[in-house]
């Protein structure tokens, strides 16, 4: 396969596009009501009637995947967005101000990094009830250091460039320099980090729901569906379809991220 930038981007767009399209479709149409229990139709294999079969309560798996995609995407995007805003802000301050600010912020970042998201989530789940807020906060806090370090490193190199010195010589204030001259230069790097983090966040959500501290029934989420399927894998392997969707989404976002790296490298080469 051609691993060039174009092929990567196309595959990324196609995979992510499909997942988004199906999730949006889920808002308007599902073949069956996703919560509807029909015990007499449990463990039906995939067929024209049930595209991806039915689960242990006779619920239509395809309908549940359509609805479950919401959770994965919304939590993924929401949590990573929150983490990126916090991380970028802190990174800007650390990189631009330096000194004690930098020292303090980097210490905090290191201590957050010592806890993997899953561990944070288990901690939150004992403080609050398991649920959506646990996933949201643990994923976003877990993502802060990634964005923080990236931003700080970029800022450290950008702030020495001549145009920043020029802006400062012209009397521009700090916040103006950050907003107008530094952030636009961070955009590509942040986008790449965003897509990679998104893929990670979707996996973490799935793992947490799988462990039982994430999304609670009856809300379908792909991770939760996998947890419920684990006893029936030999009897009804089609109950594992949500796993395929997780994989496709994660690969899609990773490919998108890669394609941005290629693009940025192209731009740098041209410069």
């Amino acid at each position, binding site marked *: 396969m051609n691993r060039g930038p174009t092929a990567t981007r196309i595959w990324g767009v196609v995979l992510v596009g499909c997942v988004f399209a199906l999730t949006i479709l889920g808002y308007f149409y599902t073949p069956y009501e996703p919560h509807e*229990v029909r*015990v007499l139709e449990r463990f039906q294999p995939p067929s024209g009637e049930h595209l991806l079969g039915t689960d242990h309560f006779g619920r239509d798996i395809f309908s549940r995947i359509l609805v479950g995609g919401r959770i994965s995407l919304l939590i993924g995007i929401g949590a990573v967005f929150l983490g990126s805003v916090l991380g970028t802000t802190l990174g800007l301050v650390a990189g631009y101000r330096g000194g004690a600010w930098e020292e303090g912020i980097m210490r905090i970042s290191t201590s957050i990094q010592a806890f993997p998201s899953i561990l944070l989530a288990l901690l939150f789940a004992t403080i609050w009830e398991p649920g959506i807020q646990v996933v949201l906060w643990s994923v976003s806090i877990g993502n802060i250091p990634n964005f923080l370090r990236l931003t700080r490193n970029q800022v450290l190199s950008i702030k020495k460039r001549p145009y920043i010195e020029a802006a400062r010589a012209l009397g521009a204030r700090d916040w103006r320099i950050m907003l107008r001259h530094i952030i636009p230069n961070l955009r590509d790097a942040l986008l790449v980090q965003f897509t990679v983090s998104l893929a990670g966040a979707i996996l973490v959500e799935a793992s947490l729901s799988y462990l039982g501290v994430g999304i609670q029934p009856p809300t379908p989420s792909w991770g939760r569906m996998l947890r419920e399927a684990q*006893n029936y894998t030999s*009897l009804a392997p089609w109950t594992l379809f949500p796993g395929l969707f997780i994989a496709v989404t994660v690969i899609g976002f990773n490919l998108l991220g890669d394609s941005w790296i290629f693009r940025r490298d192209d731009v740098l080469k041209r410069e």
Partner: protein
Amino acid sequence: MYKKASFAVLIVATIILVGSGCVFGQVLNIAIPQDPDSFDPVKTVAAATGEIAFNIYEGLVKATPLGEVEGALASHWTVDETGTIYTFYLRHALFHDGTKVQEEDVAFSLNRARDPEVAVRASELDMIEDVNVVDEGIEIRLSEPNGAFIYSLSEVYASIVPAHAGDLSRKPVGTGPYYLDEWTPNQQLALRRFDHHWSGETPYFEEANFLLIPDENSMVLNLKAGRVDLIPRLEVGVLHQVERDPDIEVLSVPMNLVQVFSINNARAPFDDLRVRKALALGVNRPEILIGAAWGLGTMLDSALSPAMAGFYNDSLAEVNPYDPAKAKELLKDAGQENLKLTLTLPANYPLHVQTGELVAEQWKALGIEVDLQIVEWGTWLERVYTQRDYDVSVIGLAGRLDPHAILVRYTTDSSRNFFNFSNERYDALIDLGIKTVGRERREVYLEAQAILAEELPGIFIMDPPQLAAMKKGIQGFKNYPTYVVDVASLYR
């Protein structure tokens, strides 16, 4: 030449090793999901402990698979005409440490078991007024006649331990057919055959190891791989993994467990019988049996399991049939068309969680908004059982030999009445039941069950199937109405 000699030595050594394996006797490996809490009979509350302790400890009497009691350490006993003075006569029996069981040990054990300072379930023996050693026997005086008394003597807490015993929680000393040789927490409990049991019988297995395997899938894999010979309680959701395996046999027997939707009767709007009745009529039990128990459970209409054959009220089937139309009507009557409720489920019991999920959907069809809360076992015990701070929950109430022990929890003052149920007639019946004997006693409990079905402290769902999965060739598995595994009856 030297090589040949060493080869010969090797062969001889192998023969000796293999041969001695046969001589040393048989080993049985049993998979259980959780560690016991304490082996001190008066300190334990976990059913998981009772399951193992059954093989280590014995009381004056013990349960039979039919749900009756027979003499264990007591060879026989007499009751006086007032029904309040029992005299027990001991057999010649030895404790695991080799000392003889004396009348003083019995008095010590029972007095300890009814001392609220030491024993967590002292209240279950509060009918005893006095325990005395008389010539060649032990005399137990009751405050009044009590039909449940003889059954309570078969419970773990009434086990007979030596008066000179030290801390029993880690090093139990009993009289049972097996003794605890080694306990590696979270790994295994190694039981060994006690060769001086009073019965004179020698169980087939010399060693019985209880292996701790928390995950049901790992249990099944271990059974298939031959590392485990017996899973006494197989989770119904993994049954299909062993069903068609020609090397594995699965026995399905009633568990004598009452699965119940407990309703907080003290909390509005559930204090309104119409609301409780609507919830009950909205439950489609056949659907739950298929969806959660793979069609293997026994549907319940009463607070007793049909396994309690002598007392079960079998005429209650029509009291709470599935009738969503009537349920909606009742909600409307009660002004609760937009009822919202929280359903609290114990996360460690997949059967109860699945039952809860199914019923939540059934209730939603009535227009009820159901919020599912799946909580850890500790949280469940604290919030639902102790503080009674909940709307509706699902739990299984473990079987006992005597109906009183099961039904007394619905009386107004019971500490185990987490339903907050209160009914004067019911309280009076339970009081009466314990003083009554024979056929009349049965009548009393039939009426008590009818009241529970009508007044609905909770909604009775099913007696789930107990599935015992074992390697082909393991024989003699005995099913008890209580939560035990009888190792001594097994052989290969």
